[in-house]
């Protein structure tokens, strides 16, 4: 892995620097201006935490934050349960129809989110459901199942089917084999995919925008509506907090497998990390 070129090509270095600047300068600006002492988005006058204080005193923002955390937690739990069941079921269907179902479960990953959003909206209103945090949560669970299924199936595929038979051989009923051997072996994958879903759902805007009611709104929707009436630097503070929180979750998700003495996880592969 650590084979180095003797001379760094200037072109590659330049492209890399420009790429990262393009990607991260706007975010750096948000973080920087969240600590600005004046209400300007153009000039930095001095360091201050007043916008953070503002944010924590804005009860409607806090309500939205709580709502988003709740949605993310419930969506993570719900999609973990359903996604794991789906993955376990798909492992057992080895026929052609099983493979077809497996491919269909991946559709949400490639469907434009706006399509999912509009579809969910039409579905809920068609059923006569009142849009609220419940509908947001339901939509987010549906959207997130695919992530859990992909990650859990990846782990299952690397497990020998003989492991389950070994459990049966040593005295387990089929349910006990899943409960005592399969699920514990999947724990790193479950924690990893749970954290990933939490991070994705927590700051998801499109689905939330289409499926939420008026009050309380999830945080990303709330921020969007407040921007329309002029940008308060408090939004920068919220953005910075969300950024820090999401980054923390992703780092956790990447670290989880290491805690279980495992060198790589499915997430590592997605993130382009170490390969076995």
């Amino acid at each position, binding site marked *: 892995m650590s084979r180095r070129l003797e001379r760094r090509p200037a072109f590659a270095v330049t492209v890399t620097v420009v790429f990262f600047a393009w990607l991260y300068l706007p975010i750096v600006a948000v973080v920087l201006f969240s600590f600005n002492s004046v209400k300007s988005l153009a000039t930095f006058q001095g360091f201050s935490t007043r916008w953070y204080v503002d944010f924590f005193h804005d009860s409607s923002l806090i309500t939205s934050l709580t709502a988003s955390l709740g949605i993310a937690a419930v969506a993570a739990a719900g999609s973990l349960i359903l996604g794991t069941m789906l993955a376990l079921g798909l492992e057992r269907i080895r026929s052609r129809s099983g493979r077809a179902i497996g491919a269909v479960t991946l559709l949400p990953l490639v469907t434009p989110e706006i399509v999912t959003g509009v579809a969910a909206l039409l579905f809920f209103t068609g059923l006569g459901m009142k849009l609220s945090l419940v509908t947001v949560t339901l939509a987010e669970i549906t959207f997130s199942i695919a992530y859990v299924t992909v990650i859990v199936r990846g782990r299952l595929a690397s497990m*020998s089917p*003989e*492991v389950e*038979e*070994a*459990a*049966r*051989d*040593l*005295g*387990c*009923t089929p349910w*006990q084999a899943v409960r005592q*051997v399969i699920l*514990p*072996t999947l*724990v790193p994958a479950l924690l990893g995919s749970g954290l990933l879903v939490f991070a994705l759902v927590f700051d998801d805007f499109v689905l939330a925008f289409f499926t939420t009611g008026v009050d309380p709104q999830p945080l990303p929707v709330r921020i969007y509506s407040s921007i329309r009436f002029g940008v308060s630097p408090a939004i920068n503070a919220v953005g910075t907090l969300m950024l820090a929180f999401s980054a923390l979750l992703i780092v956790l998700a990447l670290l989880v497998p290491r805690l*279980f*003495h*495992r060198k790589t996880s499915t997430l590592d592969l997605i993130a382009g990390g170490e390969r076995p």
Partner: protein
Amino acid sequence: MTTTDTQLTHDPATAESPAVSLRALTKVFGKETVVDDLDLDIASGEFFSLLGPSGCGKTTTLRMIAGFTDPTSGTVMVGGEDVTSTPPQKRDVNTVFQSYALFEHLDVRRNVGFGLRRKGIDRRTIDQRVGEALELVQLADRADDRPAQLSGGQRQRVALARALINRPQVLLLDEPLAALDLKLRRAMQLELKSIQREVGITFLFVTHDQDEALSMSDRIAIMNGGVIEQCGTPEHIYENPTSVFAAGFIGTSNLMPGTYGDGVVQVCPELRVPLLAGHGLTGGEQVSVAIRPEKIWLSELTPAMVQVPGTVVASTYHGATTQYLVDVAPDVTLTVLEQNLPRMSTGDRWTPGSRVQIGWLPEHTVLLR
């Protein structure tokens, strides 16, 4: 079916019910009959090997005994009890899997104790028996490691200890040594055999490796195409193969098809192999004769031998032995294996082109029909 050349054992334990009895056991997958009307008795305490090429049905047979595969028809009995429709967790058998199938989330101690915990045995007894089992496989010092931290050979031992600790009627081993390198495999063969003697549990060992089967087993069943071609002790099968398949699969044989007539099998006009009396063949019958390469002599021939002139076409030095290919007729080349004895020097070996007289004792001609 060419089965039941049953040399039932040297073991007096055969008086009790066999550890495993299979009756008319059949498994059909789709249109393919993988195991075909199989009958087999394995005596208690025996080291029994199912030997055959991949796809011969040996693993499917094992899986039907373990309970992972349901037979299409027939019965499986373990210790005299019909278990054909008993789920795997209630059968008194345990399996050592080819992939070892260790539980990665548990340390070695908990892996080994898993079966006893499921049976609800008290903790102190479990700890004691886990200790004993780990002693047996020489892994007492790795009890707290995770499977991921062990080498292939060590994982194999954990799998063995995890199955043996339950003291099953029968231990099923599905090519357990296949993933090990040659040297480790040889060492584990000896160790498995000595462990089996020590614990006295019936071992049913599935393998495609004839050396493994020959060196470890009390009895071997050679499987091919879902049926047992031949069953008997390693010596018996090696010395007296009853089918062309058995003769070819165990060791190497010089296999020659021919026509019987007047006490000889005519392989070709130049080569007529005389048979000893008592073969019961009638004239014109199509048969094969087989001769093991190490039974053919290149020197010190005696008048009692079947003697044939030939030409050496190739010679390969193997250290302890030298292998020659000898043309005895336009289309018949025999393989001959000669010991390199201490008194022989390089000059004593035949070189390609040499005219030789080869011979073998008539009782070493194996008749296959």
